[in-house]
């Protein structure tokens, strides 16, 4: 029997197109022929894994989504959540407490949360995606990253500001502004966010818009926050969160 004939035999067995007689003979052969049995198992796996058209389509879409997030975009994009740590739990605990507090207020007092409260329940420091490195400014950068990651926002803001005296970098500006926001200095943060937004279509534009809206809330300026949030297109990474927030304003 040629290899092609073996393949066709296996295929007709797998597809269930064999006559009862051929099937019985084939199954009888399987009992004695280990190689044929192994070949059948392999082809069965192959057919099973590659017959899923929806998987092929899904993979094409994954490739599309992957190519849309270019290497550069990913370097500075979005709110990557840090690894689980006590620090994170504390942070989440604080946010949860504030959220719980807000719910209690709404329930007992029929009051809407204040804008700073809305800020507190929505603010989460953007994940640090800058890498520690060696070379020029390394010490200061590493220090700034550490301060930011340990939520020492006052010092992180100073460090990121100092870094920009050595090297112009929009991501340093961005982290400086987040750190300022984290230390209740929304007024200063707002100025920096607006500067970043002057760079049209920058990789951090969407993130900056979101944090600028939060800065408006911290400054008790719901109208500006609402107007900005309303301008988010559906494709914006914070579209849903923005819609939720608008409802609370």
């Amino acid at each position, binding site marked *: 029997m040629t290899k092609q004939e073996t393949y066709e035999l296996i295929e007709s067995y797998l597809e269930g197109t064999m006559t009862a007689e051929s099937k019985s003979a084939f199954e009888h052969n399987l009992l004695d022929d280990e190689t044929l049995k192994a070949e059948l198992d392999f082809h069965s796996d192959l057919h099973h*894994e590659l017959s899923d058209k929806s998987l092929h389509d899904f*993979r094409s879409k994954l490739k599309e989504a992957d190519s849309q997030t270019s290497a550069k975009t990913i370097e500075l994009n979005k709110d990557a959540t840090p690894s689980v740590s006590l620090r994170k739990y504390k942070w989440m605990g604080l946010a949860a407490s504030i959220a719980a507090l807000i719910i209690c207020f709404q329930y007992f007092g029929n009051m809407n949360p204040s804008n700073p409260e809305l800020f507190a329940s929505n603010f989460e420091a953007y994940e640090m995606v800058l890498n520690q490195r060696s070379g020029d400014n390394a010490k200061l950068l590493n220090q700034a990253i550490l301060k930011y990651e340990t939520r020492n926002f006052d010092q992180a803001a100073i460090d990121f500001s100092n870094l920009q005296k050595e090297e112009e970098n929009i991501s340093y500006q961005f982290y400086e502004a987040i750190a300022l926001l984290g230390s209740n200095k929304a007024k200063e943060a707002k100025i920096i966010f607006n500067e970043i937004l002057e760079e049209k279509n920058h990789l951090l534009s969407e993130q900056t818009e979101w944090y600028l809206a939060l800065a408006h809330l911290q400054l008790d300026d719901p109208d500006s926050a609402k107007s900005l949030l309303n301008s988010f297109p559906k494709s914006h990474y914070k579209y849903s969160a923005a819609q939720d927030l608008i409802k609370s304003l």
Partner: protein
Amino acid sequence: MIKAINPKEQNALEGILKGDSSVINEVYKDVLPSIIYWVKKNSGTELEARDIFQDAMIILFKKLGTGHLELTCSIKTYLKAICQNLWLNQLRKKSKSSDTEISEFEEKIAFDEDILLNIDNHDKRKVFLKHFDALGESCRKILAWFFEKTPLAEIANRMDTSVNYIKKKKFNCKEKLVTAIQSDAKFTELKN
């Protein structure tokens, strides 16, 4: 039963299952950066992170396809757990990391057995898909139709050629694929 932690996540799971591009893009935008960040922090590269993220999405998709997935965490957490497990497996194999670092991961990745099983199943699938992707376009087309149980006559019609030609071509393509898979060291490793 497919169940997520809230209606929004439920819609997202259903979107993934349907292959809704906008939902897939949203998940990429939302989760991939943190995976890249984490993998890079743990001896990997961005490309490796993208690769395992794609694997995690396929594992999730296949799991959804079984109709049995009840999430008690967010999709992001679920995907991250899969990625961490995938990366941990790779680190072990490559011995890129010290034992200390690996045990540190293990503490973080206490996840249900189900994910681990899905990851194991995915390894073989990945080898199959890798070699399938490496075939020429006409081979991929013919075999994809064939695996979908499209009659050879219909494939011949679509390719504007004879059934005999398709029969021969299908065998040659499949043989090429089988040889490539069986010569892959990863496949041998999985078999043993």
